[in-house]
């Protein structure tokens, strides 16, 4: 992508020479990439190429793991989220996350799951409205509006995942990170989530990891291809508009991957 194009685009989130480690092992190396505001960026690549680890660096959840650390910078609206004075909790409120497997909080009701990270200090009515908005945004409202007080564990896997999306949406973040959000779902639930992602991009900047190339082609505006080098360090190979990357990849490794020659 040329500098002129990059400047034209409104970039909310960017990384600068970002590397991630587990102890001594470097899992992601020197990734510099920018994410366009209110667009869906897909991170694709074979298993073990570091795409999930990279995603987890973007809201500082990587460092929660034992012995995990990060080098380089992540800029949110120009501000480095790894700067000394920055509170990771504040960052995670601005950059929400949806995980590979649905992880609703088992002891909270559907309603409380939705509101667990919503703004504080709302009255009953406002809280309920907030929950309804978030659940509607996650295309789940009609299915749960009559059982808001019941356990999320009674929902299907796809519904649980949409509840997790609603929970992230209710916190009103600017960026939504999604780590293979449909990996544990059946094709119908997957289609629902994919449709949802396209709609959520009107409001949020979305970065989604997927190992499913068709999914990347269907839902994303921009696609980034990652690959592990000989040392097992995940590198960014190229990033481009999805349509271009899938039709005229700039790197032969990308072409090999999307044509199914490996991975």
């Amino acid at each position, binding site marked *: 992508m040329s500098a002129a194009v990059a400047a034209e685009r409104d970039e909310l989130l960017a990384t600068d020479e970002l590397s991630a480690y587990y102890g001594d092992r470097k899992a992601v190396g020197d990734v510099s990439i920018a994410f366009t505001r209110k667009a869906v960026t897909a991170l694709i690549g074979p298993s073990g190429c570091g795409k999930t680890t990279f995603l987890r660096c973007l*809201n500082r*959840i990587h460092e*929660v793991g*034992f012995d995990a650390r990060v080098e380089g910078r992540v800029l949110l609206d120009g501000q480095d989220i790894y700067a000394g004075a920055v509170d990771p*909790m*504040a*960052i*995670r*409120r601005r950059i*929400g*996350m949806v*995980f590979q*497997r649905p*992880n609703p*909080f*088992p*002891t*909270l009701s559907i309603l409380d799951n939705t509101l*667990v*990270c919503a703004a504080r200090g709302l009255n009953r009515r406002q809280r309920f409205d907030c929950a309804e908005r978030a659940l509607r945004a996650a295309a789940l409202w009609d299915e749960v509006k009559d059982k808001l007080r019941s356990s999320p*564990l*009674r929902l299907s896997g796809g519904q649980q995942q949409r509840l*997790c999306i609603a*929970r*992230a949406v209710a*916190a009103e973040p600017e960026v939504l990170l999604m780590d293979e959000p449909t990996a544990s779902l059946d094709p119908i639930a997957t289609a629902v989530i994919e449709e949802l992602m396209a709609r959520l991009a009107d409001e949020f900047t979305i970065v989604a990891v997927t190992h499913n190339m068709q999914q990347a082609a269907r839902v994303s505006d921009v696609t980034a291809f990652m690959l592990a080098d000989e040392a097992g360090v995940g590198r960014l190979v190229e990033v481009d508009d999805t349509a271009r990357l899938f039709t005229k990849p700039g790197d032969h490794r990308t072409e090999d991957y999307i044509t199914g020659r490996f991975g």
Partner: protein
Amino acid sequence: MTVAALGQRRLRRRRVYGSLGTALALLCALLAAGALLAILGYVIVQGAGAINWSFLTALPHPVGVPGGGVGNGILGTVIIIAIATAMAVPIGLLTGIYLALFGRGVIPEALRFLSDVLSGVPSIAIGLFAYAVLVAPLKHFSAVSASFAFMMLMLPLLVRTSEQAIRSVPQTVREGALALGMSNLRATVGIVLPTARPAIITALLLAIARVTGETAPLLFTAFGSQFWETNPNNPMAVLALQVFTYAISPYPNWQAQAWGGALLLIVAVLVLSLGARLMLRRAMQGLES
């Protein structure tokens, strides 16, 4: 001999060994279960006759006076265990949380090791310790000193099981909470602990069951009493202690009451263990779906 015939013979031999092994295992299982059932049956036969309303509610009668009961011992057991639980739960739970969340390094490993050692210390040694710390300096026996000894017996169980319970909460749940911008404290207290609660309550019930029948530490802490004692600073009657005293007495009336007391203790432990199992089953169901 053909290969097929050889294979047939081997197969037959394996079948014989297989059924022999099964039979042996079954026999051992019957022996183990049989021993438990024999104890239970014998205690019921010997003790059921002693149990009636006044046995459960009356004070002990002096030697030679028929009747009397262990009401004060039941009350004392409840009081001493309640105080022990009130002391052990906060300490054990907080240690368990600490080990589960920050469980690497020298200090947590040392804590785990000490906790395992403590769980292996004979209860009479713990009773002696309570005597040395709380009875000898104050120059009187007391229920609190018994509670203190019980707390020491409950602690290792609570520490290790609450650590396990918190660890068994999927990491994805904790990460989900943190990834939404919750503080570590709020993620632990608001999300992880409630998810682990059934397993923690199970551990607590088992810990209570463990001390309910303990007698040795009581000999030189609670000491026993003939009265309705409710002040934890005084010596107090305890059911297990009464069973001990009555059982070694030469009086048939007291010996019968010892069996009755033993039956009560067994029933109490049985009920607690069953409750623990039920809680655990509920917890498993909750996490599976």
